[in-house]
Structures are given as structure tokens and as C-alpha cells.
């Protein structure tokens, strides 16, 4: 990601359209810029009209990129979708890890992780539309990607879980994740995506209760 | 008539004439001849259909590229070729339809049954070709095809018998 690469020194060109003609920027920077814009383009397009109705023309129009250039990065709409999905998942995971690293006990880590994820979606609710709401409507392969992301989320949240916490079957864990995703999705669909952080106590309680019991879960959630 | 480039060397020898339609006529004529040979060697309608079906399966097995051309590629062709294709399929329908007198109850649209029998078989064949399956497999479908062909004309018992008749004793 441009941010991570450039740190505080060179201001990255961000995601503006590069000036036409020779601009002396290194090829990798141009390529990254174009690819990033396509990712931004498909996220915006899918959030507007859904995956099925999104066309490569739409995506290119949103990204300010020609169809020909699209095909130098992706072979299909589906491939572009997965690239964007991976980019979002990567960012969410990095955010969540950074947030939970600062905490001491496992329940506190879970709370920080959930807050971190909610912050990402609140900063841009289209990301929630893209990763949570659209996939079930977009066919089996894409739904499978969502399920895989859920498994990663479960693994991340339960990492470092102390032995004395109860063991839950993986089916129930997946169901917990799905429940949390549903709560988030509902709010985004209601147009209140900016207000996702207020869901934190509810989601923390929902997730922690099966492991540490309701009283302790509520205490952590309301802290 | 537009030239159609064949990537398949087996069909290059047929493309000397160059015309797509002519190639279709020639290949189909070969297929039809083999089917009719089988059909006409039978002693009753049921046996004729069975021998014709096995003959068709044999031709498809031995001519995989021609099979793809005639049954799959021609779907994409223009109106004239589609019309010629349909006319030829009608001849196969006629062969099946000769079983109509065997039906127990008289019906006003008897020929449609034969249309559906042939259409069903072609539909299955096209599906297999689209999936890239080998035409050598067609033979193993003949008993099933015979079940569906015989059922409307001779009833359930006869249809079931067909399921156990294979290439080794097609004259049963």
C-alpha cells in the first residue's frame, strides 16, 4: 500500500489521475496507482449497483481507466473482485492485529479487534457492502470467499484464547461470526454505516459470552 | 458462403471444396448412410431403431471431429445451414415415427413424440460435446436412448428390456 511504502517522506500521488504524457514516475508507481484505482472503482461500483449488474465498463469509468488497461491487470470482473476483496481483507486484518496487540488479556484483545474492524467499515461503509452484503448475491465462488474470510476472522479472534475459556464447536463459531456480520450489514443497508462503532458493546458481548460467560462478557463489553 | 477455418487437421481434408455448407452435406451424408445401413438390417421397427442407434454411436465414436462439427459447430452457423440441419434431422424423426402404428391409443399429434425422442438424443449429445467428452462414450447411452424411444410406442415392459441390451447382442 502506498502509505506503508512511502511512510512520511515522499508524498504519494494518492489516487488522483496521473497527468497524461511523460511524468517521470517510476513504472511500479504508475502500475500501483492504476491497480489501486481499479480496486477503488470496483468497490464503488459494486456498492452502487451490486456485483451482478456491475460491468467492466462501469468499473473503468469509476476508476478513470481504459478497458484495455483494465485487462492488463485483471482477466475478468471476477478476478478484479477477488483482488479488491483481498486488499480489504488484508487491511482489516492488519488493523485488527495492531489494535489487539496493544491489549493484555484475551477478552480485551477481542474487544479491541472488533472495534478495529468496525472502525474500518465505518470509515467507508462501501467496504462492508462489498465484503459482507454483496457476496451471497454474487454466486457460489464469491460466497465461498466470504466464508473463507469468516474462518480467518474466527481464527484471528480466538488466537491466544486461554485454556480455561470454554471450547466452542467451529460451527457455532462460524455462526457467531455470521451473526455479527448480519448485524453490521443490517445497519449499513439502513444507511447508518457511519454509526457502526456504537455496535461495539453488543458485538463484543455476543462473541465473548459463549467462551467466558455472560457476566464477564458484559463487563468487558461495557468497560 | 464464408470460409470457415478448421483448426482440426482431420477436417482439413474435407475443406478442399472450401464451402462450409458443402462440408456439412458431405459429412452428414456419411453419418446418415451408416445409420440407415444399421436401421435397414433390422427385422422389426424396434430392432431397426436399435441397430440404427448403435450404428450412429459407432460413427460418432469413429469420427469425433466430424461429430463436433456436425452437431456442435453448426449450431453457430447461419440460417441456411440451420434449415438444412433441421431437414436432415426430420429424416431421422421419420424413422422413429414409423413406430406410430404400434401405439395402442390413437392420438392426433403422434409425430411429435418422435420429434421429442430425436430432439432429446441430440440434446444429450450436444451437452456431452460441449463438455468436451469423448464420443466413444455415446455407445454406452444407447440402452437409455432405446428406453426413451421404445416407451411411447411399446410400453414400459419393452422399454425396460432395452436397458439390458448392449452392443454384444443388439439383435435381441
Amino acid at each position, binding site marked *: 500500500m502506498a502509505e506503508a511504502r512511502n511512510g512520511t517522506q515522499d508524498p504519494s500521488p494518492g489516487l488522483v489521475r496521473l497527468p497524461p504524457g511523460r511524468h517521470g514516475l517510476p513504472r511500479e508507481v504508475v502500475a500501483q496507482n492504476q491497480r489501486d484505482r481499479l480496486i477503488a472503482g470496483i468497490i464503488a461500483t459494486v456498492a452502487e449497483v451490486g456485483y451482478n449488474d456491475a460491468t467492466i465498463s462501469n468499473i473503468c469509468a469509476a476508476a478513470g481507466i481504459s478497458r484495455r488497461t483494465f485487462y492488463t491487470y485483471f482477466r475478468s470482473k471476477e478476478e478484479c473482485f477477488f483482488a479488491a476483496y483481498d486488499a480489504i481483507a488484508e487491511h482489516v486484518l492488519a488493523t485488527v492485529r495492531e489494535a489487539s496487540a496493544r491489549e493484555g488479556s484475551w477478552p480485551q484483545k477481542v474487544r479491541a479487534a472488533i472495534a478495529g474492524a468496525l472502525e474500518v467499515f465505518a470509515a467507508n461503509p462501501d467496504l462492508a457492502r462489498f465484503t459482507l452484503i454483496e457476496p451471497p448475491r454474487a454466486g457460489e465462488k464469491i460466497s465461498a470467499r466470504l466464508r473463507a474470510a469468516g474462518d480467518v476472522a474466527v481464527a484471528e479472534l480466538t488466537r491466544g484464547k486461554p485454556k480455561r475459556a470454554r471450547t466452542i464447536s467451529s460451527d457455532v463459531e462460524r455462526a457467531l461470526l455470521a451473526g455479527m456480520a448480519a448485524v453490521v450489514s443490517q445497519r449499513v443497508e439502513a444507511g447508518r454505516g457511519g454509526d457502526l462503532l456504537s455496535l461495539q458493546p453488543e458485538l463484543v458481548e455476543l462473541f465473548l459470552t459463549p467462551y467466558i460467560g455472560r457476566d464477564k462478557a458484559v463487563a468487558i463489553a461495557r468497560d | 458462403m464464408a470460409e470457415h477455418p478448421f483448426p482440426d487437421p482431420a477436417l482439413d481434408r474435407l475443406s478442399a471444396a472450401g464451402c462450409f455448407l458443402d462440408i456439412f452435406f458431405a459429412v452428414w451424408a456419411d453419418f446418415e448412410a451408416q445409420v440407415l445401413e444399421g436401421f435397414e438390417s433390422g427385422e422389426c421397427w424396434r430392432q431397426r431403431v436399435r441397430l440404427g442407434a448403435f450404428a450412429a454411436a459407432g460413427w460418432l465414436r469413429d469420427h469425433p471431429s466430424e461429430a463436433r462439427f456436425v452437431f456442435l459447430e453448426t449450431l453457430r452457423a447461419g440460417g441456411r445451414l440451420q434449415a438444412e440441419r433441421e431437414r436432415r434431422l426430420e429424416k431421422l424423426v421419420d424413422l422413429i415415427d414409423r413406430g406410430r402404428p404400434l401405439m395402442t391409443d390413437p392420438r392426433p399429434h403422434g409425430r*411429435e413424440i418422435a420429434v*421429442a425422442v430425436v430432439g432429446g438424443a441430440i440434446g444429450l449429445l450436444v451437452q456431452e460435446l460441449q463438455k468436451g467428452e469423448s464420443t466413444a462414450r455415446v455407445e454406452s447411452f444407447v440402452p437409455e436412448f432405446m428406453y426413451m424411444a421404445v416407451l411411447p410406442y411399446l410400453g414400459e415392459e419393452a422399454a425396460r428390456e432395452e436397458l439390458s441390451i448392449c452392443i454384444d447382442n443388439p439383435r435381441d
Partner: protein
Amino acid sequence: MRLPEHLKKAPVGVERLSRDALSRHQRQRIIKAAIDVFAKRGFQNTSIDNIVAASEASVGGFYLLFDGKDDCFVHCYDSVTADIRAAVAEASSETSSWVARLTTAVITILRYAEEHPLPARLVLIEAQTAGPAGVERYSETMTGLSRALRGGRELTSRGDELPPRLEDASSAGAAWLLHQRLARGEAAGVVELLPEFLAILAGSYIGEAKARAHARRALSAKA
């Protein structure tokens, strides 16, 4: 952790999509016109200019909605099959027997073909030559019909003795029967073939005679 540029909410590039530009009305108009054009001229002989002229849209407008001819065809196909499915759902009753439901479905489809021969041609005739996506759609539809028919096996005690590809063949046969009528412009009165259609589709489960009798009753009831 801040969102990287390409995951931010702001629009990128020059053109910004809006729901207005992709208005449902515009899309429906083009699809309706395209169905007619595809069915009358055939898929091969149809150009985007033909469709644009028939729908009084613009080429730019066309490309905002569709990637090209193939993509437009697929949307047309889906639109027609959705209409047919809706008609069947409306005519059906959950409480009827399997055979009654099959009868209703077949009558509905045959009536649809009588009343809307051009859309019916698009699905049954043109799809097979309309590029890989069209072929795939047709294949999916046939697979769906075949699967739906398998339920009939429960009506006979000898269901598992029936040939495994029976439903594939009977649905292909029925489709070919209708295909022929449409191809010859003889769609009018195709409902009268109901006994033949039911004999083909249900004869193996309940016997030819019963299937035909059922059909004749259904026809005289609607007369």
C-alpha cells in the same frame, strides 16, 4: 490505522456513477428492444447499432449498462427467464400434486411461447448460438429443468431403475419440440400439444395414458 487511499470512500477518476445514469427504466427499455432485435435478426446478425436504434438509446448509454453484445444478450436471457418463472410461480399452488404442478408449469410456458414468441425464441433458439455465455445460460436452464423433473421419480416404486439421464433427455426433447414450433413460426396453438409434452415429461413416472388424460382434463378445464 488510517484507510489506504484506494479503500477510501471518495470517488476516484473522472466519471462518477450515479443511480440516475443507470436508471432501471433505461435498462428495461434497451433490454425489451434487444430481445426483439436478437429474436428477429438472430444473434449473429445483430449489431449494437441495431439494438441502439431500436431502443432509441445512445451507444454511450448502451455501454454504461452492458459490456457488449454478448453481455446484453445474457441480460435479455435472464430477463425472459425471470418473467417465465414469475408467471409459473403465479399460476402454481403449493398444495397441488407434483403432476398438477408440472401441468401448470408446462401450460404456462406454452402459453408464454404463444403470446411472446420473440422472447421465447431468444431463450430456446438464439441462446444456443449466442457466444459462450449464452450457451452456458441455456445449459444451466436445461440442467435446472432436468433437476426439477427428477422429483417425478418418487411417484413410481421403480424410480431408481429408470435410466439416469432420463430427465436430461426428456427435457431436451420437450425443448426441441417447442424449438421447432417457434422456428417454423407455428407457436400459435402449441398449448394443444400439452398431452404430448406431459407424456414426454411424466410418462415414465405415471404412465403415458395417465399423463395424457391429465393433460386433456387440464385443457378442457381451461377451455
